[in-house]
């Protein structure tokens, strides 16, 4: 019996996902068709990519609010380099991704060395880099990329959209890091007990640098995918994206206080958000109503988790 409860706690989020899928299949004829499902997957690909970085940061007990504006800046910088400087798209993309990785590293450095709260550090960073994006672009969209660049965001390999393939690769990398690499274990350790980690010989600062760099790296990759899909670098492209990413992670059961979470469930969180948006659109629910529903879903998911935890707290006391 206990086993089933554990199992439900572990995979319950997939039950929620399945329920949603069943619900929308009943409510709309166009939902459960391969084309639409690929559509959902493509829509969530950027979310899924960035969520891996956010999940790492949350595991560590931190948060990265600068993800959305990093995506914006990557959009603007890569677009600027390709259009205004005439760079090769691949090199422009790599430079932009390296830039966001460095921003992440800088976040990590400040958090580790100045011992400032991550929420403040990354919030300041959010504001700053949004400003930088405005300065570079003067607030205007940048477009006119080489033809080849749009392949990344809009092309297919076989029937599978390339962004989905990139997302799957990043998710697999995320799982590998958390489940098989030794430094992934350090994320859990530092997030669970920083002092014990330090006394176990873990270089806590270095772990923080690494985690925030990963967050920047994945945000950068998500940014490039987004740019290739929209074919236009815009200052609002990543606005508020960090909140969607955070929602997906929390839906996926990553503890916001650190030390607990798994990528396999974050995937479910990402898919729930995607299915919700898509299904509600198919049902002709207005965008504003969608916001209400998404907010409610987030609160319900966390409430469920908290109730579970509180129950546990009482029984183990």
């Amino acid at each position: 019996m206990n086993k089933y409860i554990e199992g439900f706690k572990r995979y319950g989020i997939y039950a929620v996902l399945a329920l949603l899928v069943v619900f929308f299949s009943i409510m709309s004829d166009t939902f459960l068709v391969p084309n639409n499902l690929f559509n959902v997957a493509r829509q969530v690909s950027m979310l899924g990519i960035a969520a891996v970085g956010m999940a790492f940061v949350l595991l560590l007990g931190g948060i990265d609010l600068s993800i959305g504006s990093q995506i914006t800046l990557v959009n603007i910088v890569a677009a600027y380099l390709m259009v205004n400087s005439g760079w090769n798209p691949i090199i422009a993309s790599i430079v932009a991704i390296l830039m966001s990785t460095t921003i992440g590293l800088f976040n990590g450095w400040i958090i580790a060395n100045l011992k400032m709260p991550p929420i403040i550090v990354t919030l300041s960073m959010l504001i700053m880099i949004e400003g930088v994006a405005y300065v570079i672009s003067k607030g205007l969209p940048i477009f006119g990329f080489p033809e080849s660049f749009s392949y990344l965001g809009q092309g297919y390999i076989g029937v599978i959209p390339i962004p989905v393939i990139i997302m799957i690769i990043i998710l697999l990398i995320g799982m590998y890091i958390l489940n098989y690499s030794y430094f992934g274990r350090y994320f859990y350790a530092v997030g669970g007990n920083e002092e014990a980690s330090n006394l176990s010989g873990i270089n806590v600062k270095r772990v923080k640098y690494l985690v925030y760099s990963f967050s920047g790296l994945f945000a950068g990759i998500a940014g490039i995918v987004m740019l290739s899909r929209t074919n236009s670098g815009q200052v609002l492209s990543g606005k508020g994206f960090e909140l969607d990413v955070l929602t997906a992670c929390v839906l996926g059961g990553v503890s916001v206080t650190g030390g607990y979470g798994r990528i396999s469930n974050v995937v479910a969180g990402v898919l729930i958000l995607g299915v919700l948006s898509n299904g509600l659109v198919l049902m002709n629910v207005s965008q504003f109503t969608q916001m209400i529903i998404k907010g409610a879903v987030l609160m319900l998911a966390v409430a469920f988790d908290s109730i579970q935890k509180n129950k546990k707290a009482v029984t183990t006391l």
Partner: protein
Amino acid sequence: MNSSQILLELKNIVKTYPGVKALDDVTLKVQKGEVHGLVGENGAGKSTLIKTCTGAVIPDSGKIIIDGEAFSSMTPKLAEDKGLAVIYQEFNLVGELSVAENIFLGRAIRKGTSIDNKAMEAESRKIFEQFNIDIDPRKLVSELTVGYQQLVEIAKAISQNANLLIMDEPSAPLTKKEADRLYSLVKKLQESGVTIIYISHRMEEIFKLSDRVTVMRDGMKVDTLKTSETNMNALVKLMVGRELKETYPKREKCIRDDIVLELENVSGNGVKNISLSIKKGEVLGLAGLIGAGRTELAEVIFGAKPIVKGTMKLNGKVIVPKTPRDAIDAGVALVPEDRKKQGLLLEVDIKGNISISILNRISKWFTVNKSKEKEIANHYKEAIRIKTPNLEQKIKNLSGGNQQKAIIAKWLASEPDLIILDEPTRGIDVGAKYEIYKLINTLVEEGKAILMISSEMEEVMGMSDRIIVLSEGKIRGELPREQFDQEAIMSYASIIQMEE
């Protein structure tokens, strides 16, 4: 026994958790006005039993009878109404409020719409005077030491007219002096008619304070005895279900000639000019009062705090550990003082806790060799007998003693030459303590050097080959085993020199 004399009766209480029977048909009768000791090893069910009285745990079956009134389960509010108060190990105080505000928290005395601080302070003062406690009710709780905070908790219970006070290991965090003050308070409370259930690991205080004592083991009540009609050995025997022949297991002298650790005039982190050496197979005890610099010295040796001056040699080689990693790689291990805060990764499984400090060694291309990890964890689980059905269990599910063993396992896995044990048996029960002692013996017999810090005088004397006494960060005295003497250690430990 006349039933009107019974203030609290727990009748046939059963509480089952998945896989464990935490309370198995426990019946406990507490007489009016007595101090009732409650003893048992960790995990015996004492805390769970207490929690059924306050509603924190709902029993599966059984009755809680207070003053003749029977309940199938309690709530915190009901417990308070019936005059029942618990002093837990973690206090329910608000640090940023004054003592008086804490005592009247949630029931503030009002004057019109505002809070009448004067009246609350006066009331608090009255209670403190009645029990001879010297606390200024206007002080902030966060400014008080743990000992005084506990007194505030007790005063709070008294102000609520509690007539049954349950104290869960109240002396555990206290210094000797504070504990003595607590004992006299318990006596005074009893004189004023309060009934007390006193949970403790410390046998001396059970015999000092209690009228009767109940022994629990494995979720069952073993017996309730008149304290005056039993003795320490008999109680311990009931607690562990077997007789402990000796508190400290014997070991053959196994000190070898090679020096493992050598410190020359080491200063830093509050310790000054420390020179000492430890040989292979030796247990060096580090004695001293709290704040004498013992833990601070351990941190320096382990690279957690920098050496400011002096040299440190390990196996003859000079090393300057800048981080714990440096020290670990050089062959030093530290089993820290505060297991929960500094040692355990609670949400991680036992295996992961054991391997955490050697993950880099058993990894290739960043990838942990999981079969090797399991093999190592299993090896130490067997070697030091960690009691657990499997290693994938989260470590928070283990008892205190087994958690401590897992932490030791973690450090053995790093194959150290020097093991620093900081309060290795704090908060673990008698049986587990004995096993830790045996383990220490095995380790030195294998040639490890051990630096053991302990605040329990008997433990340092029982386990060490040699004792160094610190005070104010300096070495004040050194005693070979033949000269071990409690008074000598105490007098060294209390050397205080005023320095300008």
